[in-house]
């Protein structure tokens, strides 16, 4: 076998956008940080599973929604298999909001925005707020009595703030397009940024107790094991005198 390299030659670094994007990406999220195989020992509560449960619910929503989209919007009214998948879609939405709100409660009571993680909170909050119209567009796309009622009532709210002029709840074609394409893209994009920020910053450390000594570097693994560095905060651990945030 030839010893020739199989990778293409690099272009001059200073000019290449590709190199710049790649280097920025790898710097922010080296593989061990993107997919670490360890977590700090304080990650020791069931409250931590509600984030991944939210992602799991979103996956089930999209999977069941994809099947409904494959067969078209009338299918679920006409066959029991269609109704079955519609039911899965509806219950996975209920589960999604259920676990997402429990996740939100947990993150609030842990003040998970600390240590430079403000954007994690912001992207998570916006995800929730975008999920609400994603659900609304689904409700008005059902093509049943519920859709008739919700669209004719909620249109007054949309119209009152001028949004109704370009977002017409009684326009099935528009609402269906928002529901199966535009808003899922928005939710998935927001969740992706949110998760990448969590991977970059690491899971927020516990509050320091008053007059306690923070766990020092004794026993901490070397860098390749995937120990993320928070972007702010001092480098050398020192005795805590009580944290104020």
């Amino acid at each position, binding site marked *: 076998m030839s010893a020739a390299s199989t990778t293409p030659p690099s272009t001059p670094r200073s000019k290449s956008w590709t190199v710049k994007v790649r280097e920025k990406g790898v710097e922010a999220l080296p593989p061990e940080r993107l997919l670490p*195989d360890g977590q700090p*020992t304080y990650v*020791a509560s069931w409250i931590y599973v509600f984030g991944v449960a939210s992602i799991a619910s979103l996956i089930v929503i999209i999977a069941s929604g994809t099947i409904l989209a494959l067969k078209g919007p009338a299918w679920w009214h*006409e066959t029991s298999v269609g109704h079955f998948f519609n039911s899965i879609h509806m219950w996975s939405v209920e589960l999604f909001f259920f676990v997402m709100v429990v996740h939100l409660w*947990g993150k609030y009571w842990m003040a998970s925005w600390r240590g430079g993680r403000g954007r994690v909170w912001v992207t998570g909050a916006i995800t929730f707020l975008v999920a609400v119209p994603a659900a609304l567009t689904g409700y008005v796309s059902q093509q049943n009595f519920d859709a008739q009622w919700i669209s004719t009532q909620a249109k007054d709210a949309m119209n009152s703030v001028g949004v109704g002029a370009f977002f017409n709840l009684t326009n099935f074609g528009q609402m269906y397009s928002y529901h199966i394409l535009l808003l899922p893209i928005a939710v998935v994009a927001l969740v992706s940024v949110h998760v990448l920020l969590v991977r970059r910053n690491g899971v927020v450390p516990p509050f320091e107790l008053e007059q306690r000594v923070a766990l020092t570097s004794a*026993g901490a*693994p070397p860098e390749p*094991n995937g120990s993320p560095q928070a972007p702010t905060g001092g480098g050398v651990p020192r005795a805590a005198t009580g944290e104020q945030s």
Partner: protein
Amino acid sequence: MGFVDAMGAVFNLDHPAHTVDWNFIHLSVANVVVIGLMLIVFVLAILLPFPGAAARDAARRGGGAS
């Protein structure tokens, strides 16, 4: 366009909802159940022990090898 009933459901929820009424608050029983379950699940999530304590103890004692 035919409409398939809530076919095969073990429990038929296709009847007008009962409501929980208090002062000016009127919530459907189903919604109250969901909200109540959320609170219960939140409390349980915080209180129930999380598996892997042995591995975490080993990491604390032995230097965190993964």
